[in-house]
């Protein structure tokens, strides 16, 4: 399952997608949990009883602002969360 957390508003698209199929048997030892400087990731049991990462509810409506520190306006080459997730389950839409 591709789970998209975030939103789209007038200013743009701000989604972090998690490919749960790549996440169930995490090959990176749940590195996302510590990689994100704001600790936005969390492991939970989803509706189909799989243990996967998701974005904590309090961050889902403000990703544009919460992720801003990792994304300088002048451009970025790599994000801590996507770099840490070696199975490639985590993606940013912006």
């Amino acid at each position: 399952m591709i789970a998209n957390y975030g939103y789209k508003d007038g200013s743009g698209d701000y989604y972090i997608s998690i490919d749960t199929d790549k996440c169930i048997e995490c090959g990176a030892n749940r590195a996302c949990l510590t990689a994100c400087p704001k600790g936005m990731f969390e492991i939970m049991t989803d509706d189909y009883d799989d243990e996967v990462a998701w974005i904590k509810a309090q961050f889902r409506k403000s990703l544009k602002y919460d992720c801003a520190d990792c994304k300088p306006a002048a451009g970025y080459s790599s994000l801590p969360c996507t770099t840490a997730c070696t199975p490639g389950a985590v993606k940013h839409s912006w």
Partner: protein
Amino acid sequence: MITAGIDMGSRSIKIVLLEDIKVEGAPQIKYDMKKPYLMMPGDLDMDKAAEIAFDSACKEAGVDKGSVKRVYATGAGRKQVTFAADSVTEMTAGAKGAVYMFPNVKTVVDVGAEEGRGIKADSTGKATDFAGNEKCAAGAGSFAEAMSRALQLSLKEFGEYSLRSDKTIPMNAQCTVFAESEVVSLIHSSTPKEDIAKAVLDAVASRVCAMVRRVGIEKDVVLIGGMVHNVGFVSSLKKALDVEELLLPEHPEYVAALGCALLAAETH
């Protein structure tokens, strides 16, 4: 030579007229800023409104309209100023005006009615980078305005009420429309208006601050745009940016128009 800068904002039209003063032997050109002019276009068509505003601005400043050499426009409706020689973005105009007023400024925070943004400027007043909140009412003055309406306070009172609170109530809603219901439920739960006002302004400040961080916060930092008049917002923003000093221009809403007039004057 007289030049004009017209800032066609979403709510109001701001006009600045500049005349250069030649001082014998001085290395730099000095400018005399005439009395700035602001008009609410109301029901008028924007292109008509621009012309009426320009006529009135010249009259108010005692300048013969025919003697204005060059007009530049900025703002959301800049393309509607058909008589302008050229138009520049709000970032370009804002950075230019801010650096003219405060030569050591590196970071310009611009919060108007509909947009909030952080701009990085070099010593010549050129905008080198920016990050903003366009097209979403949550990151700008209109968010505070909608909430002040819900609290039945004027925008000015809203800021003053906020200063009297030392509480930090987080607001969950990020959208202006949803935040209105949140404010209403805070009112129903007897939360003091002071605390609600501060919660709202803290929320706008934190969003604006996140955008400024994207360009980097480098001293000196100046705040321009209509929200300078909101004392509560200024205080919340200063805290969020974590800076010792936040410069505030005397006529914050005219900075972009001034920048525009300067750019018109520097064109040869």
